[in-house]
């Protein structure tokens, strides 16, 4: 299979770029799934916490942003991977 792809890319230079693009797209798409679910959980639970204890809103919001930032990091690695895989 891999030998086939190598042979094909030698025959058709455009094919390499195309395969790279497909790979990059799949990589980013896959990388975005987990963080998407994670951020949803973080924000949902933060809203629940805020509704239960409105007086703690400031602290909860700060913590929520931190949680989002840490979760988001994975999606961002996917974003970088997209550009690395493409070129």
């Amino acid at each position, binding site marked *: 299979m891999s030998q086939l792809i190598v042979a094909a890319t030698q025959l058709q230079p455009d094919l390499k770029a195309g395969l790279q693009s497909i790979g990059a797209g799949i990589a980013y798409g896959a990388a975005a799934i987990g963080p998407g679910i994670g951020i949803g959980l973080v924000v949902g639970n933060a809203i629940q916490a805020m509704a239960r204890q409105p007086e703690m809103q400031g602290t909860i919001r700060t913590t929520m*942003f931190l949680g989002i*930032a840490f979760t988001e990091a994975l999606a961002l690695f996917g974003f970088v991977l997209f550009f690395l895989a493409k070129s």
Partner: protein
Amino acid sequence: MPVLGAFVFPPIDELFRWKDLWFNGSPLAINKTVLLVLISSLMIVTIFILGSRKRALRPGGVQNVVEMTYEFIDNGITKDVVGHDAGRFTPFLGTLFLFILFLNFWEVIPGIQFPPTSRMGIPGFLALLVYAVYLVTGFKNQGFKYLTGHLFPPGVPKALYILVTPIEFVQLFLVRPFSLAVRLLANMMAGHILLTALALLTAYALDTNPGILKVIAVGPFLLNIGVTGFEILVAFLQAYIFTLLTAVYLGDALHPDH
């Protein structure tokens, strides 16, 4: 006859790389990114030095903005996140926040519409600076315990150290600075690509030949306005998150069980 089918998105590289305006080819060459960085720096310095010169008891205008920013950083970030004894970090965190905020806002300024923070040089430098600052603070404050406390967290079964220690090492020395830089870069870059794509779509739709098809331009145009509003929020939020994470790392360096 250019119809919508003829739409070609330019290579991403073309949206972000600018040719040198002055000092061509030298290490200190100035292009659009650098120019925007310099203008922003000038604006920050002007606003904040003018705003803090006049010390009216009843603040108004610039002074009000300046003092609100200071309070926001000092109370909301330094004292809440780093710690109550960490007032000395407010200048660093404040400058960091303003620098990123002003650079981010170029993304939505009509006629410029390019965030310099979407070039790796700027977030990369800032992340490295933060990296250096929190490592130095940590080692200065806790000595070697800063490292061991991270690599061998207390309360974890000894056998798990095989798993935990490498992860913590990577987290402390690689993931932290890398994610800090990439988060800012990727958010601004994605925003810029999105806005450019919508603007190009509008332009292409307006360029179609059968006049009636030009109506299609309304869609991406309205979407562009909406996304611009969203990007204003993102510009602020990313500056805030960068500063907040810096504060968290600094707080971790100052107080081990934080």
